Structures are given as C-alpha cells and as structure tokens.
C-alpha cells in the first residue's frame, strides 16, 4: 500500500508538469483552434530564461526567495516575448489560411526555437540548474510516503495555476471576452472586443504558465536542455486532449491522469509490457480508450467551444 501511495504521489508530480504546460495548449486551442506545437518550446525557453537570470543577471548571494521570484520573472519575460513574437509573425498572418498551414508553421517554429537555443545559448551542454530548493528535503505525507520540496512546489503551482486561470476566464472582463472570442470571433469583434489582443492575451497567459513549469522543472531536475520541450510538449498536448481540449480544469486533470498512468505502468503493468520502455505506450492506450468512450475527452464538451 505504501508503495502504491508513493507511486501515486510520483504520478501526480509527473502529471503536474504536463498539466501546467497543457494549460497553454488548451488556452490557445480553445480560442483559435490552433495546435501550437511550439508551446513545448515556450516551456523550454521559460527554463532557460530562469537559468539565464540566475547565472548572468543575479549577483551571487541573492537571497533564495528573491532569486526564485526574479528567476520566475526572467523566465516569464523570455517565454512571453517568444510567444508574442511567434503569434504576431508566424500565426497571425495565417489566420484564414487553410487549417493545416499553421500546423506546419508551428513545426517550423518548434524546430527553429530548439535550434536557436541549442546553438546560441552560452555554455554548451550540460546546463546545470541551481538547486535553490533542496531536492533532498523530503516531506513525509504519512505512512512513509514522501515528496521532496521542489516536487511539492510543482504540484502546488499546477493547482494554483489551474484555479487562477479558470477564475480569470470565468469571472474577469477579459476572460469573458476570451470565451466570446472562442465561440465566435467575428461576433466578438462586433461587441467591441479586440480579438487580436485577446488572442495575444491567451498566448501570454499560456506562456506565463509554461514559464512557471519551466522553472519548477529546472528546480526539480537540476538541468535544462533545448530538447526538453519536445517530449513534454507532446505529453502536454496529450494531457490537454485527454481532459477535453479547450477545457481548463480538463488540462490539469488530463495531466495528472497521464502522469499516474505512466508511473503505474512502470510499476504494475504485466510483464513483459512493463517498465519505462512501455510506459508511454500505456499513456497513449489510455488516451485512446478514453476518447473511444468519451470522444470529447474527460470533461466532455469544450467550455470554450465554437458554435
């Protein structure tokens, strides 16, 4: 039982990163129906932005809390800037183009950003990330089940991010405008909503959360690399679809579910289909099963669906 509970915690932690990144997929997809494959790279840039802030901008001896806050801001600045430029110059011109055109653009952006960081980020691999929150600080959750401090931070960030984002979309004036834009962009404009600005806002929010995730990822594993976005991106996209793409709570729920499935497959899947080598396959099997029975994902109908 302890083993099971510990693995459950591991799964939740793994899923928290997927969920945080998935929020960005869901936001953008909900509003412009674009699978932004480059969103994983925005997450990666968040990690690198935070690292850059720490290694280059911060004087040594900066208090940890202050350093963390500044690293988060640095990561966000990089992620958000990249997302805004990407939206403006790669995606916006293609609005109204055939539906699949932006998909290839997204692929191009994804390759471009990975290679940009890989080639031009100073200090070649590895890029050790400062362990500001000590990973050996274990918090006992009872019954011998533990979670270390950076992981706890990741989970908290995912839940807070989800709650904050859904509150924002549900209650704020801009959030309302987002829903309107998602359901009918033309009519939203007739209401006086600047849909271009709303779409940028969606990219900005998604990028900010991705930066949070990039930072927490760095803190958790002590390293960042230019490819980290590619794998996480696919997983996060899967999580978003699992939860019902366009649905904010669904994204995080999907992330948790995916994380738990992968972890449980590692521990409990019947041999020989067990172990990390098969874990990703199990994740997709669960995705397919869920979609066969609930074609719109776990949380059903998209909250921000178009008419």
């Amino acid at each position: 039982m302890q083993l099971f509970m510990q693995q459950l915690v591991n799964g939740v932690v793994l899923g928290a990163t997927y969920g945080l990144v998935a929020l960005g997929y869901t936001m953008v997809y909900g509003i412009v129906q674009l699978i932004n494959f480059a969103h994983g790279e925005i997450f990666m840039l968040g990690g690198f932005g935070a690292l850059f802030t720490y290694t280059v901008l911060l004087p040594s001896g900066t208090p940890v809390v202050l350093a963390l806050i500044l690293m988060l801001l640095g990561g966000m600045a990089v992620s958000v800037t990249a997302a805004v430029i990407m939206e403006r110059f790669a995606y916006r011109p293609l609005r109204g183009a055939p539906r699949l055109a932006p998909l290839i653009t997204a692929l191009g952006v994804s390759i471009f950003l990975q290679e940009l960081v890989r080639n031009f980020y100073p200090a070649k691999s590895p890029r050790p990330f400062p362990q500001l929150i000590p990973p050996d600080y274990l918090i006992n959750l009872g019954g011998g089940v533990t979670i270390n401090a950076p992981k706890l931070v990741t989970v908290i960030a995912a839940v807070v991010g989800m709650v904050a984002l859904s509150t924002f979309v549900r209650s704020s004036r801009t959030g309302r405008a987002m829903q309107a834009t998602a359901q009918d962009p033309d009519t939203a404009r007739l209401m006086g909503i600047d849909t271009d600005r709303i779409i940028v806002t969606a990219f900005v929010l998604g990028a900010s959360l991705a930066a949070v995730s990039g930072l927490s990822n760095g803190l958790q594993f002590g390293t960042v690399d230019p490819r980290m976005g590619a794998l996480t991106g696919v997983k996060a996209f899967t999580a978003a679809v699992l939860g019902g793409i366009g649905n904010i709570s669904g994204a995080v729920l999907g992330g948790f579910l995916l994380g738990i499935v992968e972890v449980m497959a590692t521990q409990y899947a019947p041999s020989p289909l067990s172990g990390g080598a098969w874990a990703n396959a199990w994740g997709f099997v669960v995705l397919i099963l869920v979609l066969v029975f609930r074609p719109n994902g776990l949380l059903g109908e998209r909250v921000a669906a178009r008419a």
Partner: protein
Amino acid sequence: MSRDLSPKSLLGVAGAVATAVACFLPWSLYAGFPGKMLNTGFPGGARMYVLLLALAAGAVLLLDPPGRVRGLRAASVWALVISLLTALLIGYAGGGLGNVAAGAWIAVAGSAALTASAYLLDASSDRDRRVWSLPDADWRMPAEIVITLAMAGLALYVFVVGLGIPTSNVASGPDHTFRDAISLNDVTNGSEFLAFLFGIIGLFLVAGRIGLTASLGAITQRRRPALVTGATLAAIAFPFTQDGSPYALRIAASIGVFAAAAVGLNVVVGLAGLLDLGYIAFFGVGAYFAAIYSGSTTSPIHVHLPFFLVIVLGALVAAVFGFVLGAPTLRLRGDYLAIVTLGFGEIFRISVNNLDGQSGPSLTNGPNGISNIPDLGLPGGFSFGDNHHLFGVPLPFQANYFFLEIVLVAAVMVAFLRLSDSRIGRAWVAIREDELAAAATGINTTRLKLLAFGLGATLAGAAGTVDAHVVKVAAPDSFTFIESTLLLAAVILGGMGTVPGALLGASVVYLLPEQLRFLHDLRLLVFGLVLILMMRLRPEGLVPSKRRQREFRERDDKSGALDPPPGAHA
C-alpha cells in the same frame, strides 16, 4: 498592350537593364568561388539566375501581362536576394568584401532599383491573370505536345541541377568529373545551390503571377499521354545524367520513397481531410515486414519471401493495421483524431523497439533493428546490388533502386489519381468539406473514412517495403513522430490533394536539409525558418489544387476571415 512609361516604370527598366548587364561582368576577384564568376561574357552560376530574373522582370514590365506588378515584385525581390547573398558569400569565401567585383555590386544596385520600382507601382492596377491558349490551328496539337515534352525536359533539368549543380562546375579533363563537383569547399557550393533554389522560386512565382503556370498547366492537362510519356522518359533518363555517381541517385531514390509515402498520406489528409500524425507507422509496418522476410541474418524469422510477394503482403498487412486502428477512432473529429493517430504512431515505434524477446516477443530485433538486409534480385540472376553499364554509361547499383522507385511512385500516383477522380474520391472531398452534409446526402462517412485510412496505409506499406531494401536496415529510430510531421509538411507544403504538390513537397522537404549541409549546425535552424516562411508566403501550398484554391477564397467569403486574405487589398 498599354505601355506604361511613368517614372516608376522607367526606374524599373533601368534597374533591369543594369542588372542584366552586370551579369555579363565579373562578380568575383577571388578564384575559388564556383560558377565562373570571374569572366566577362557569358554568365555562369548565380549570375545566370539573376540574369534570367532580370530579363523576366524587364519583359513583365514592358509586355504588361496580367499580374504585371505582382510578377515584377517576385522577380525583383529574388534577383536582389540572390545578388546580395552571392556578393556577401564571395566576400566571405574570399576573406573580405574586397574580393567582390564591381559586377556584383552593380547587380545588387540594379535589382534594388528594380525592387523599389516594383513596390512603388500600384499592384491594384493589375489585371486578373487569365489562361492563355494557343490559337485553334492545325499545328496546335503538335505544338502542345512539344510544349508538354519540353516541360518534362525542363523538370528533369531543374532536378539534375538542383541535386548536383553539375553544369557550371564540371571542368574539362579526365580527373575532373562531376564527382569532383561536389567539392569540399562546401560554403561556396551551398551558395550556388541557394542561388539556384531562389532563382527557381523567383521564376516560378513570376510565371504563376502572370498566369503562365496556369496556362501551361492547362496545356499539359490536355496532353496527358504526352505528359506521362515525357515524365517517364525524364525519370528514366535521370540516372544517365549522373556520370556513374551514386550520390544523387541515392538521394533521388530516397526522395522517391518519401514521395510515394507523401502521395499516400495525401489520400488521407488531402482527399479525405483526416489529419494523421502517425502515418509513418504504416510505412514502418511495410518496412519491418520486408525486413523480417528478407532473409536477413538479424531477423528472428528465417524465411525469405520473394520481393514481389513481400510488396503485396507488406501493403496488405499495413492495410489491416490501417483498418484495425482506424475503426475505433473514426468517430473522433479533427484534432482528436490527430492526437490518436499520433498515439498509434508512438505505440508502433515503442512496440518495434520492444519486440526483441527481452521486453516483448521476439520479432523486430528491438532497438538494434533488422540490419544487413540483402539486395533484391530478379529471376535470372540480376542483383540490385550490382553496378551496371548501359549504353556505355556507368550506372551504380543505386540506379537499380532508383528505377524500382520510379515504378513504385508511378503506381502510387496512378492509384491516387484513380481514387481522386472516382466516386469515392468525390465522396471523400464531400466529407472533408462538410461531414454532416455528406452524411445527409447518403454517403456512408464511417466506411469511407475507414477506406481512406486503409488505402493510405496500403500505399505507405508498399513504399515501406521498398525503403527497407534501399536503406538496408529497419530500425525504430526511423519511424518517429518527427518523420510523420515531415511527411505531413511535404503534403501541406506541396499543396494538399494534388500529386505534383506531394512530389514537389517531398522533394523540397527531403532535399532542402540535404542541400543545407554547408550550414553545419545551423542547418535545422534555417530549415525551421524556411518552413515558417514558406507557409507564410504560400499558405495554400506550392501547387494548390484548383478545387482548394477556390475553397480558399470562398472560405474568406463565408467566414469573413479575421484578416483579409493576403493580396486581397493593396
């Protein structure tokens, strides 16, 4: 033909003349740069493309065809790009801008003036492009056939040049054959490829904007038999242009496999409108099937089936996979289907990686893959692994696979065209456009979607069986998500739903990274950038289907796109 002699036009004429003249002057003071940049007189290398663009610009300016200003813009911008790029690279390769001769700077200035003129002129005064046709005379049919054959010849020429840039580099003497043309000095060699690529893009755009492409397209469509003959002849002639070098043939064979798969994917995505992000898995099924039954020592099943049987069976097995995987997922819509296909693709890759007797049943030799796949043979002792001589021209063994490739691509193309023109094809298009409406008219959408999946998988499986023998190894690394997306990129970049589009897209997606080798570590960076820019400049693909083009416009009409379509308003 109304002559426009405004100052803006005259600026353009002057620019075109200056650019053209500059092409006959030396561009480089540094001898190491390829493409005969030193001489006064007949222009070689990059200068040729600039000259062609300058002449095209001048002709467009003076002859005033429909789409005059837009055509002029294409010609001038690309002439400027090539001359500037070449000047900079000469400077770089020679070790300083001092190596750039006056000719290059005149060309830069001239094409800059041309560009300025093109953008000062008002594009909204352009007349709509129209389709020219030959007068209805006795000689019309033979003339059209000649034109069609000439187009095939031109395509061959462009392909040969694009693969190797041989013509300008071949020096005389027995020691300097084309083989040496792939020189070590890769920076300068790459520059010439770029000049070629940009030149072709520029000329192609000019032709498109003044309506020439459409006119020629109409002619070649009317002369289908001539087109097929010409294309076949051109393809067969290709290995004979390579002087025994296996390199270009090897790439051409790979492009062939890639193109065949792209055409297959085009059935699923282009015709039926189902976004498949895991298509490479079906290709992989074919490849693994062929590998397992090739008699390779690394295959756990020591059965050697004849290749013709392998193609058929491999395609069938892939089809079964297509149907089985398609069945439970086809009621999903759009992007949900995309992620499920992505999932299937990954499950395939993970499975073949694990079916090695360690973490699964022994079938695929796991991460090592099945290697050492023997060469194909024909009854009568002909081995695909042997080099041959034909008509006195040495043909390396890669040529054998290239010919096999032609047969495969032709078969896949015929299958695609047959499908596309059939009742099934029209039903697919109906589903793609509006599934509900299609269902309402009595189309069994589920069955047809399944059929699209299955047929697409069949074509991919057939291509995969050939690929296993061309590459000689089937390993899990070759069937990753990125391969699926590159295939999709080929289809979309080329133009959805068209055969020439898929072929062109496959060539670009395969050849571009290959020819960008000289960039070393920045290769993929530039490739990503090019993908973005290509979609930005031609969102409907390089060769959009006529149907698609219409839809593109109507779409704007219906939805009143958030932004006006490019080029709609000046």
